C-alpha cells in the first residue's frame, strides 16, 4: 500500500488549517500492526466536525484495540485541498498513514445527517472509487454506511455494499471480522456479502429480497459496552472540543417529532460509579479542561443529582468545567445547570402554544417554562436560547404567534426579577421535517411557500421586541433535508446528478446551492413534492425495509393521539409498550407496565 505523505507535504503550506490532514494527535494507536485488516472510517464533512462525533471516537477505539485490526480516519477535504489533490492527480487518502481509500480492505462512511449525502460522492470521487456498488469489482474495498441516517438508507443505498442499521459498537467489529475471514478464505465479494447479511443489523442492498426486514442492532448492556476513555486529542480546535460523557442511550420523553427519541429506544443507563470512572479516566487520558454530559435528555438521567454532585468534586479536583448541553425544561434544576459564568441557558419548547406542545408530546406547560426560567434568572442567568419548530402538524398561525407571546412573557418574567442587567433572548426556529420512525412519519412536510409565509409571520410577530433576537433555518435547505429524510431509492440518481453538477458541502450555507438540487430533481423527472408528500396509514414507507424494533402500530397510535392533542407519559413513568420491550429491557423499568 502506497503512503502519500511525501506527496502531501508540499500541499500543506498552500491550504487552510493544514493540521486537518496531518494526524499525529495524542492517543493515536499503533498503526503498524503486522498483517492487520485495514479499515478506514470516513466522515463526509471536515475534520473539525468529524472529530466532534462521539460515535466515531468510540468505534475508532474499539477497532484499534482489536489485535489484528487497524482503523484509520478520513474526512472530507475542504475545497482548497480538493483543488490541490486534483491538480496533482492524487487520490484521497487516510489521515494516519496517508493510504489511498481504494487500498483499504473496507471503508466505512458515517452518515450523520442528510445534507452530507453529496459529500459521500465527493469523497468517493476524490478517492477514485466508482459511485455505485454494482460498478465496483473485487479490486475495490467493501463500502459500508453507518450512522443515524441509515434509518432510511434508500436514498443512498446503491452507493454501498453494506448498510449498518442501528448501534455499531458490537455490529461493526463483528462485520469487519466476517469480511476479514472471507478475504482470508479467498471468497468473492458476493460470497462475503452473503455471510455478512446474516449479522444482526446488516442490510446488503444488492442481496435484499423484497419483504425482508433488517432488524436494527442494539447495545443491550450499555453498562459494560466499550466507551471512549482514550479519544484522540485534536491539535486544532474542533466544534465540540471537550470530553464527552454519555450517560445513557435512548430517551423516554416520547416527543413525537424526534427521530432519535424513537429510533434509539430503549433507555439503557450507566451506573454512577461507571460514569465517574469513565469521566476520571477520560480527563486524565486527554487533558481536556471541559466535560459535557451528553444524552438525548441529560436532565432525565435517573441519578443526575448524585452524578453531578460527585462529578463536581472530580471537576474541582482536576480543575475542569462541566457542562450540561441538553436540558428538558421540566428537568431544569438551577443546581444542575452549574455553568459558573451563568451566561446562557438553552431550552427547547419546540412549539409556541400549549395545545401544539401536546400535539408533539413535548410535555411542558407555559407555567413550567416560566417557573424554570424564573429560577434560572434568580440564579443569575441573563441569556436564554429557545428553540422552536415551524410547520408542525396541526399548526395554526396562532401557534406561531404564540412563540412571540412566550418570548414576551419570558422578558417580563426576567424584568420582574432583575432590573439592572440586560436580557438576551435568542429564538431559533427550524422547519419541522417529518422523519422516519416517528409518529409523524406519515405527515407531509409543509411546502416551501408555506415555510416562507410562516417565517414572515414570525418576523412580523417579533418586530419591535427589544432584547430578543430571531433566527430561522433557510427554507431551501429544509426542503432538501426533507426529501432525503423521507425519500426512496429514486434519489440515488438525483444525488449523483446533483454532485456532478457541483453539489458538495451542502451543510455549509456558503456552499449549498438549491438550484443544483432542483435541477437534478427536474433532470430525473421529479419534484420536491414527489418525496415530501403525506403517506396513508397502510402505505408502504420507503424505510419499511428497516425494523426499528418500535412497532409501526404503536407509532400510528401515537400519530393519532398527536392529532387529538393527547399526551403520552414519559417512559420513565411506566412502560408504554412501544415494542422495544420485546427486544431489550429498558434499565429504568425492565418493561414493566
Amino acid at each position, binding site marked *: 500500500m502506497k503512503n502519500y505523505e511525501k506527496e502531501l507535504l508540499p500541499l500543506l*503550506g498552500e491550504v487552510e488549517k493544514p*493540521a486537518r490532514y496531518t494526524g*499525529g494527535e*495524542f492517543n493515536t494507536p499503533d498503526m503498524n500492526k503486522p498483517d492487520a485488516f485495514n479499515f478506514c472510517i470516513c466522515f463526509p464533512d471536515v475534520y473539525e466536525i468529524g472529530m466532534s462525533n462521539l460515535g466515531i471516537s468510540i468505534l475508532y477505539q474499539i477497532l484499534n484495540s482489536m489485535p489484528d485490526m487497524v482503523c484509520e480516519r478520513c474526512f472530507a477535504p475542504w475545497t482548497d485541498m480538493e483543488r490541490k489533490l486534483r491538480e496533482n492527480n492524487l487520490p484521497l487518502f487516510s489521515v494516519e498513514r496517508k493510504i489511498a481509500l481504494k487500498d483499504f480492505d473496507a471503508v466505512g462512511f458515517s452518515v450523520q445527517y442528510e445534507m452530507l449525502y453529496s459529500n459521500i460522492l465527493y469523497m468517493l470521487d476524490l478517492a477514485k472509487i466508482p459511485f455505485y456498488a454494482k460498478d465496483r469489482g473485487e479490486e475495490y474495498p467493501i463500502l459500508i454506511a453507518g450512522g443515524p441516517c441509515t434509518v432510511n438508507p434508500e436514498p443512498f443505498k446503491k452507493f454501498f455494499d453494506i448498510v449498518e442499521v442501528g448501534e455499531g459498537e458490537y455490529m461493526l467489529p463483528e462485520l469487519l471480522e466476517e469480511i476479514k475471514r472471507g478475504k482470508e478464505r479467498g471468497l468473492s465479494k458476493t460470497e462475503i456479502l452473503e455471510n455478512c447479511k446474516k449479522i444482526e443489523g446488516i442490510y446488503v442492498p444488492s442481496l435484499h429480497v423484497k419483504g425482508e426486514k433488517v432488524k436494527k442492532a442494539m447495545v443491550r448492556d450499555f453498562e459494560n459496552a466499550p466507551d471512549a476513555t482514550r479519544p484522540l486529542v485534536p*491539535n486544532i480546535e474542533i466544534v465540540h472540543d471537550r470530553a464527552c460523557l454519555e450517560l445513557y442511550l435512548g430517551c423516554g420523553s416520547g416527543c413525537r417529532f424526534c427521530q432519535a427519541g424513537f429510533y434509539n429506544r430503549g433507555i439503557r443507563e450507566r451506573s454512577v460509579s461507571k460514569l465517574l470512572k469513565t469521566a476520571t479516566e477520560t480527563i486524565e*487520558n486527554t487533558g481536556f*479542561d471541559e466535560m459535557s454530559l451528553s444524552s438525548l435528555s441529560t436532565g432525565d438521567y435517573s441519578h443526575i443529582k448524585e452524578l453531578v454532585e460527585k462529578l463536581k468534586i472530580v471537576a474541582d479536583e482536576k480543575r475542569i468545567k462541566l457542562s450540561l448541553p441538553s436540558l428538558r425544561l421540566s428537568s431544569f434544576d438551577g443546581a444542575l445547570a452549574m455553568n459558573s459564568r451563568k451566561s446562557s441557558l438553552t431550552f427547547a419548547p419546540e412549539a409556541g402554544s400549549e395545545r401544539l406542545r401536546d400535539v408533539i408530546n413535548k410535555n411542558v406547560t407555559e407555567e413550567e417554562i416560566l417557573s424554570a426560567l424564573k429560577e434560572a434568572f434568580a440564579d443569575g442567568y441573563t441569556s436564554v436560547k429557545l428553540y422552536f419548530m415551524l410547520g408542525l402538524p396541526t399548526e395554526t398561525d396562532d401557534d406561531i404567534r404564540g412563540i412571540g407571546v412566550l418570548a414576551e412573557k419570558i422578558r417580563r418574567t426576567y424584568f420582574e426579577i432583575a432590573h439592572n442587567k440586560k436580557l438576551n433572548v435568542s429564538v431559533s426556529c427550524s422547519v419541522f421535517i417529518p422523519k422516519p420512525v416517528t409518529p409523524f412519519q406519515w405527515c407531509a412536510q409543509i411546502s416551501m411557500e408555506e415555510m416562507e409565509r410562516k417565517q414572515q409571520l414570525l418576523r412580523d410577530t417579533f418586530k419591535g421586541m427589544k432584547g430578543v433576537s430571531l433566527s430561522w433555518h433557510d427554507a431551501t435547505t429544509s426542503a432538501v433535508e426533507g426529501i432525503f429524510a423521507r425519500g426512496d431509492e429514486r434519489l440515488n440518481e438525483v444525488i449523483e446528478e446533483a454532485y456532478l453538477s457541483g453539489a458538495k458541502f451542502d451543510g455549509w450555507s456558503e456552499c449549498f446551492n438549491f438550484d443544483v438540487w432542483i435541477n437534478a430533481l427536474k433532470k430525473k423527472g421529479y419534484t420536491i413534492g414527489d418525496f415530501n408528500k403525506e403517506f396513508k396509514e397502510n402505505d408502504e414507507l420507503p424505510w419499511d425495509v428497516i425494523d426499528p424494533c418500535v412497532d409501526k402500530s404503536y407509532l400510528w397510535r401515537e400519530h393519532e393521539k398527536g392529532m387529538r392533542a393527547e399526551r403520552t407519559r414519559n417512559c420513565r413513568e411506566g412502560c408504554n409498550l412501544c415494542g422495544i420491550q420485546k427486544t431489550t429491557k429498558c434499565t429504568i423499568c425492565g418493561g414493566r407496565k
Partner: protein
Amino acid sequence: MITLKYEKKYPFVYVSHIDVLRGMVRIIRRTGFIPEFSKGFNPHMLLFFSPPLAVGVASECEYVTADISGVDEKEFLEAFNKSCPAGVRATASYVTEKNPNLAGNIAASDYLFPVKDPARTAEIVSFFEKCDKYTIEFTQKKEIVEKEVRGQIKAVKPVNGGITFTLATGNDNLRADRLLAGLKKDFGIETETTDILKIAQYVAEGGGYTNADEYLKRG
C-alpha cells in the same frame, strides 16, 4: 517556575500558535502535575510562552514556562514527553525563581534555511553583507504589504547546507517564512517554509544577545 525547551516539528509544525496554547494546556494536564491557575473570574492555567512561530516553520528551541513548584524539573520533563502528540518533544528543563517572560524578552532567533547550491549561498550572504535595504512583499489581512526588513535581519552566516539568518523576534519581529518568500523570488532558491528550522532564541542583554538557554540557566 519550570521552563521547558521543546521541539516543534512535523506534524505539529502545522499547528498554529493559538492551537499550541490550547494544546500545551492539555499536555501539561496529562502530565498529572497541575500548575497554578489565575485568580480571575475565569481561571486559566498559568503558562507563559516564547514568541509565536509561523505555521509550517519547525523549531528545536521553543519554550514554555509553567507556574509550578515542588516538582522535580527532570521528572516534569519526562512526564511532559510521555504526554505529547507527535512532533513535540521537550529537550531541556530549567527552574527559575520568577517568570522569565520570554515573550517580552526574546529579541532575536536563528533560523537555518537549507540551500542546496553553495554558490547560491555565497551569493545571498554576500548580498546581505553589502545591502542596507531589503524589501519583501507579503499578504496581511488579504492585502499585499511591502516592508523594508534589512534592519530586522541581524546576521547572515553561511553554514554547511545552507544559511543561518538571525532575525528580529518578539515585539519587533520578522517572520522567517516571509523572508523566505522574498529570497525565493529574488534568488530563486528552492527552499520551502517547512524546510526552515529555528535553532536558537536570544534575549537582548547589555547591548548583545544571550542565548535563551544560558539566560534560563541563571535561574
